[in-house]
C-alpha cells in the first residue's frame, strides 16, 4: 500500500492532469524517492492507486532510464558517457571510479553506499567530463577531483554516524 505521504504527494501532482494515468510517471518517481527503487510491490501499489493494470504500468516503468527496477546504493553516481565527455576522458574516469569503488559500471558497492551508472549527456558538455551524484552536478572532472568528491561523501557519512553515537 502507498504510505500516507506518498499518496499525498501523488495527489498534489494528479491535479495537473485531466486523468489519473498521466500522473503515473510522477507517481513512480515519488515511490522511488521514498523507497530507493521501484519494486514489484511499488508497481502494484501505484497501479492500484491509479487504477491501472500492473503490466501496463510496468511497461512504462521499464521505458524510462531513471526509474530503477533494481535496488541501488545510498548514493547513485551517474557518469556521463556521451560524446563530449568521452572526448575529454570519460574512459579514464570510469576506470578510476571503478577501481576506487571496487565495482564495475552497473554495480553497487558491497557496503551499499554507491551505485555507479553510465548515463547519457548530462547537459554540461562545456565542462566535460561530468557526473552527477544524487542531485548534484560535478564538472571538469579528473581523477584527483573524483577522489575529493568521494571523500566528501565519506566524511559526511562519518559525521552523521558520529552524531548518532553522541545522541545515544
Amino acid at each position, binding site marked *: 500500500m502507498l504510505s500516507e505521504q506518498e499518496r499525498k504527494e501523488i495527489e498534489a501532482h494528479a491535479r*495537473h*492532469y*485531466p*486523468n489519473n*494515468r*498521466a*500522473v*503515473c*510517471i*510522477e507517481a*513512480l*518517481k515519488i515511490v522511488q524517492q521514498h523507497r530507493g527503487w521501484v519494486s514489484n510491490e511499488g508497481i502494484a501499489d501505484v497501479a492500484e492507486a491509479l487504477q491501472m493494470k500492473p503490466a501496463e504500468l510496468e*511497461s*512504462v516503468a521499464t*521505458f*524510462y*532510464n*531513471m*526509474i530503477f527496477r533494481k535496488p541501488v546504493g545510498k548514493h547513485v553516481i*551517474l557518469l556521463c*558517457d*556521451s*560524446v*563530449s565527455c*568521452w*572526448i*575529454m576522458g570519460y574512459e579514464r574516469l570510469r576506470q578510476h571510479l571503478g577501481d576506487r569503488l571496487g565495482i564495475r559500471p552497473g554495480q553497487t558497492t558491497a557496503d551499499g553506499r554507491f551505485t555507479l551508472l553510465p*548515463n*547519457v*549527456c*548530462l*547537459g*554540461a*558538455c*562545456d*565542462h*566535460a567530463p561530468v557526473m*552527477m551524484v544524487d*542531485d*548534484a*552536478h560535478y564538472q571538469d572532472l579528473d581523477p584527483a577531483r573524483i577522489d575529493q568528491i568521494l571523500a566528501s561523501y565519506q566524511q559526511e557519512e562519518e559525521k552523521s554516524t558520529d552524531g548518532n553515537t553522541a545522541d545515544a
Partner: protein
Amino acid sequence: METPLTHNISPGREPPDLAQYEKAGGYGALRKALGMAPAEIQAAVKESNLRGRGGAGFPTAQKWSFVPMGDDAPRPKYLVCNADEMEPGTFKDRMLLEGDPHQLIEGIIISAYAIQADVAYVFLRWAYKLAARRVERAIVEAYRHGYLGKNILGSAYSLEMHLHVSAGRYICGEETALLNALEGKRANPRAKPPYPQVSGLWGKPTIVNSVETLCNVPHIVKQGAEWFRSLSRSDDGGTKLYGASGRVKNPGLWELPMGTPLREILEEHAGGMRDGYQFRGVLPGGASTDFVTAEHLDVAMDFDSVQKAGSRLGTGTMIILDDKTCPVGMLLNLEHFFAQESCGWCTPCWSGLSWIEQILQDMEEGRGRASDLELLESHTRLLGPGHTFCALAPGAAEPLQSGLKYFRDDFERHIHEKRCPWSPT
C-alpha cells in the same frame, strides 16, 4: 551587440526573482500582448522570421497558424515547452532555464495567448534538478502575482501552467513522443498526420516549442519584428545561443547574432584549439548533425547556410573533433547513444543502429573487414529520411555518413592495421 536572451543572466548567480525581473522590464511584453489580438501577435512573430530553436528550424508563426482558432475550436488547447534537452553536446536551454526562468514563463504565456491555449506544460528532463527548482518557484511567483491563473492581469484570458519532470529518455524530446510521455505512456512517437496542432495532447490542439524559441517571443512583442530581424546577420531573425565543447581553449556558450560564421565562434569565442591539438572537424549542431571540416569554417551559422554546407544548424551547440581523438571511436560513442535511446518502434532503427554499433566496435578492436565500409554506408541510406517513424534514425545517420566521407582514411587504417591507430598498444 544586443543579447536579449541572456541579458539578465550571470552564470553562477541566482536568477532574477519576480521583483527583479519586473524591475528589468519583465512582464512588460505580456501586458502589451494582452492588449493585442492573438492574430496580431502571430503576425509579429511571422514578420520577425523566428525559426524554431529545437533543431529543425521550422518557422514558429507558421507552426502556430495551423492551430484552430475562434469560438468553435476544440478545447482545451495546449502549449508545451520542450525542455527535454538530452542530445549529446547540447547544453544551451539549461542556461535559460536556470538563469532566467521568468523570461521563459513570460514567453510561454504570450505564446499560449497567441494560440489561445488554456493549459501549458513545461516538459523538463530529469537531470536538470536546479532548473526544476527554479522554474517551479517562478511558476508559483507568477501565479501569486496574477500572471497565471484566471483572468490574467484583469484580462479575459486565463492560463494554467504546470511543470512536468520526465524520467530520462532522449526520444521524449521528439514532439509526438513527448505528448505520449505527458499522457503517462511509453514515449513512442506518433504517426503524422494528424499533426499535434490539430490533434495533440489528449487529442486536442497542441503546440510544442523549444525553450530558446519561447524565450525569444517576449522580446519580439516588446521591441518589434524589425528590431528582431536587425539582430541577425542572416535572414533568420534574432540572436542564437551557440555553444562549443571538446578540446578548445574556452568551451562555453555565447549569445551571438544568428548567422555568425563558424570560424568566428571557434576562434574568437571558443579561443581556438588547446595547445598541442589540431582541428579536424566539427558536428556543428549537436550529436545528430553531419560533420563539417576545415573547408567549411567560413560558413554562416544559420539554418540555410549550414544546410548548404551539407549539415544542419541543429541546436547550434558544436562538438569539436581534434587530431588526437579517433573519429571511429567518436562515431562508436555516438552510435552507441542512438542505439541505446532508440524507442524500438521501427526495425531499421533499433536493429540497424545496434548493428552499426557492433561494426564500429569490431573495427575499434581490430576486427574490421574490408566490406564494413560498404555495409555502414548502406545502413546510413536505410536509416535516412522516410524509412523510419521519426527523425532519431536519420539523425543517427548524419554523423556516420559524413564521418565515412571525411575520415575514410582513418576507417581504412583501422581495417588494414587490425587495430585502432589511436589506442596505446
